[in-house]
C-alpha cells in the first residue's frame, strides 16, 4: 500500500461513507434533527440572557456615574433630599456644557400597567426627570410625538414599554393617583433600559407621590479628563452626604447579574441534558451505520486499509452529521428568536425590563461547537467498535 497514504485512505473511505448516507437516510436524519433541536433550544434560551445583558450594556455611557443613597442597591430603595443633590453637584469632575451642569437628579417608582401578552398587571418603571436627563443620555431621541412640557403632567414612553404594555400609545393616558397623565411622545434610548420606562417631569412626580423636594438618584456625566475616584472620594468623604457613587456600567451589570445568572444556568442545564439525549441518539445512529457496514468495513480492511482510516471515516461521518444538525439548529434559532421582543421581571429593580432576544455570533459558534462535541462523542465509540471487529467474523457473515 505504498503511495496510498493514510490520508488518502481516510478520504477514500470517508467519501465512500458519506455518499452512502442517503441509503441510511432515516437514522442519519434522526441524528441531524436531534442535534439541530439541541442547538436551537440552547441558542434560543441563552439568547434571552444575551439580550438582557445587551440592554444593560447599552444603558450605560462610558463617562456616566450614578449616585444612590449608601446602602441602597437600587434606585427604588434609594432616596435623598434636594440639599444632597446640591452637594453632589459641587463635586469635582462633572462635565459642563452650554446647557449647564450635566447632572440629572431623578425619581424612580413603578406603576401597574397590563402586559399586552397576558392582560395581567406588570410593574412598569416610571421615572421623574429634569431637562438635563436628556443631555446626560446621548442616544436619546423622540421617535413619535414630542417631549413633555416642564410642569405639566404629560408623560413620554420608551419604545419597549409602548410595545409591551397596554395603553401607552400617543394620545392615551396613564392613571396615577386619580389623575390622567396623557402620553405625548415615544422615545428611543439606544436600546438601553430607559426604553422600558415611562418618563415624566420630576416636579410632577414629586407632587403626585408626596415626595417633597427629594430625589432617588443622580445621573451625572464626568469630564473625560477627570477621574471617577476623585469624584467618589469627594462624595464619600463629605460628612454632609450619605451617598454611594458608582460607574453606570458597574451599576447596570450588577442590576442584571442575578437574572443573567439564573437564565444562563437554566439554559446550560437544559442544554446539557438535551445534549446527553442527542449523544445517545447519535451513538445509536452511528452504531447502526457501522453494523450495517460490517462487511464493507471488513472487506476494506482485508484489502489492506488500516484501522486508523476506518476510525477516522466513521468519526468524520458523525462530525458531518453533527455539523449539519448544528448549523440547521443555529440557523433556526437565529431565524426564530433573533430580535424577538419580550419583557421580564428584573429582580434588581423589581420592575419590568423589555429586551430583544440576541442571537449573536459567539452564541452561534457556541452552539455549533456543542454540536461538534456531540458528534465526536457520538462517533468515537462506534468508530472504535468498527475498527476492532475481527475481519474474519465480519466477512463470514456475508
Amino acid at each position: 500500500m505504498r503511495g496510498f497514504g493514510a490520508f488518502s485512505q481516510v478520504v477514500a473511505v470517508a467519501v465512500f461513507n458519506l455518499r452512502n448516507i442517503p441509503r441510511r437516510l432515516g437514522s442519519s436524519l434522526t441524528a441531524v434533527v436531534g442535534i439541530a433541536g439541541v442547538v436551537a433550544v440552547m441558542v434560543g434560551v441563552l439568547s434571552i440572557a444575551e439580550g438582557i445583558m445587551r440592554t444593560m450594556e447599552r444603558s450605560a455611557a462610558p463617562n456616566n456615574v450614578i449616585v444612590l443613597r449608601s446602602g441602597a442597591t437600587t434606585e427604588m430603595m434609594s432616596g435623598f433630599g434636594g440639599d444632597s443633590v446640591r452637594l453632589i453637584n459641587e463635586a469635582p469632575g462633572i462635565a459642563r456644557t452650554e446647557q449647564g451642569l450635566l447632572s440629572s437628579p431623578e425619581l424612580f417608582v413603578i406603576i401597574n400597567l397590563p402586559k399586552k401578552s397576558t392582560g395581567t398587571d406588570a410593574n412598569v418603571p416610571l421615572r421623574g426627570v429634569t431637562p438635563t436627563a436628556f443631555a446626560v443620555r446621548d442616544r436619546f431621541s423622540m421617535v413619535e410625538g414630542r417631549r413633555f412640557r416642564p410642569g405639566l403632567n404629560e408623560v413620554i414612553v420608551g419604545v419597549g414599554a409602548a410595545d409591551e404594555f397596554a395603553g401607552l400609545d400617543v394620545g392615551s393616558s396613564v392613571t396615577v393617583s386619580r389623575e390622567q397623565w396623557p402620553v405625548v411622545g415615544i422615545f428611543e434610548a439606544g436600546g438601553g433600559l430607559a426604553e422600558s420606562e415611562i418618563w415624566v417631569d420630576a416636579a410632577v412626580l414629586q407632587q403626585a407621590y408626596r415626595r417633597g423636594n427629594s430625589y432617588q438618584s443622580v445621573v451625572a456625566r464626568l469630564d473625560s479628563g477627570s477621574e471617577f475616584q476623585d469624584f467618589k472620594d469627594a462624595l464619600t468623604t463629605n460628612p454632609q452626604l450619605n451617598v454611594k457613587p458608582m460607574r453606570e456600567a458597574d451599576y447596570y451589570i450588577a442590576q442584571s447579574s442575578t437574572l443573567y445568572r439564573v437564565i444562563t444556568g437554566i439554559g446550560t442545564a437544559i442544554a446539557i441534558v438535551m445534549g446527553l439525549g442527542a449523544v445517545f441518539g447519535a451513538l445509536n445512529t452511528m452504531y447502526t451505520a457501522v453494523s450495517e457496514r460490517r462487511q464493507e468495513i471488513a472487506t476494506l480492511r482485508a484489502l489492506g486499509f488500516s484501522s486508523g482510516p476506518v476510525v477516522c471515516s466513521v468519526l468524520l461521518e458523525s462530525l458531518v452529521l453533527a455539523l449539519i444538525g448544528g448549523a440547521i439548529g443555529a440557523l433556526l434559532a437565529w431565524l426564530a428568536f433573533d430580535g424577538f421582543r419580550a419583557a421580564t421581571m428584573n429582580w434588581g429593580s423589581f420592575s419590568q425590563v423589555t429586551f430583544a432576544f440576541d442571537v449573536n455570533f459567539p452564541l452561534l459558534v457556541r452552539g455549533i461547537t456543542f454540536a461538534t462535541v456531540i458528534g465526536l462523542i457520538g462517533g468515537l465509540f462506534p468508530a472504535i467498535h468498527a475498527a476492532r471487529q475481527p475481519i474474519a467474523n465480519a466477512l463470514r457473515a456475508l
Partner: protein
Amino acid sequence: MKYLAFIWSNLRRSKTRTALTMLSVMAAFVLFGYLTAIRTAFGQGIEVAGLDRLIVRHRVSIIQLLNETMERDIERIEGVADATHLTWFGGVYQKPSNFFAQIPVKPEEYLRMFPELLLDDAEKQAWLKTRAGAVIGRGLAERFGWKVGDRVPIRSGIWSRKDGSDVWEFDIVGIYDVAEKGVDDTQMLFHYDFLEESRQWGSGLVGWYVVRIEDPQHAAEIAAAIDDEFANAPIQTKTEPEGAFAQGFANQIGDIGLIMAGIVSAVFFTILLVTGNTMAHAVRERTNEFAVLKAIGFTDRAVLGLVLGESVFLAVMGGGMGLALAWFVVSLGDPSGGALPGFYIPGRDLVVGLVLVLALALAAGIVPALQARRLRIADALRR
C-alpha cells in the same frame, strides 16, 4: 404477559441499541421533570394559593404603602371574615446575594390567616413574648444554618431605624414547617410593632392586606366591594384573589409555561424520531422472523402486540427512570442555591409525565407495529 419473555429477549438482542434508546428517552423525561420544577418555582404560590384569600394592594403599584387603619374598614365589609397586613422589609443578610423575604406581621392574625404554616405552640408563645423575635421557615434555616436562639443582623434597603442605622437585629425564636409542598418556607416573619416603634419614617404605613372571605364563590363581589370602599379615599386599592395575584406575578417573569412547552415539544419530537427509528429498524431487521411467527400460528394481532410491547417497554423503562432521576435531582435543591422556594415537581405533573410516556410509546411503535401486522407470510419469507 406470556410474551413478556419474548419481548425481553428481543430487546436484548441488540443491547447497545436498546440501552441507548432507553437513555435518550430517559434524558427527555429528566428534562421534562426539571422544567416542571422550574415552572412551579417561577409560578410560586399559584399551586398553593388559598381560594378563600384575597390580596389588597395600592392601586398604582404594590410598592406604594397602605394605611394601618384600613384593616378596620376592610373587616367591616360583608363577607370578609378576617384581614391582616403584611409589609415588605427588603433586607439582606450580610451581602446582597443573601436575599430572602422578611415580613413584619401581626403574629396572631398572620398565623390564623395562613394555617399552612405550622409553628410549635411553645415557639409561638415565645414569639408573642419577644419584641425582636422572629420565626423563620425550615428552608431558610437550612440555607443559612440558623437555629433557635441565634441573633441575626438584617440590613434593610427600605427601613432605617430612628438612630439612622439600617441594620436590624432579630432573635430567632422559632422555626416553622409547612403543611404542603410549595408553601414558602424561606420567609422570616417578625413583629410589625417592632418595625413600627423603631422606624424612622412611614409610621402607620403597611404594604398590603391579606383578607379571608367567608365564601370563595363571592370572591369577585367582595373584591369589588373592598375597592369601592376606598374609591374616594386618599388611597385607592386593587383587590384580587390570591391565586390571580400569584399568577399575575408569575406573568411578570414572562410566559414560562409557553417557553417550557416549546422546549418540551422540541425534545419530544426528537425523542419520538429516535425511538420511532429504532423500532422501525428493529422490525425491518426481523421481517423474516415475524413471517415465521405468523407461519407457526401467531395472529396478526399478536405480532402487532409484540412490536408495540417492545416500544412500550422501552418508553416505560426510559421514561420511568427519567422521571425518577428528575425527582431525585430536583430534591437536591434548586439551581440558585435556595433563592427559588417552591422548586419541586407537583404530583399532577408526574401524572402528565406518565401519560406522555405512554403517548410516546404508542406514537413511536404504531407505524412499525402496523407494518409487522400487515406482513404477508409468503412475501416476507421470500425476501
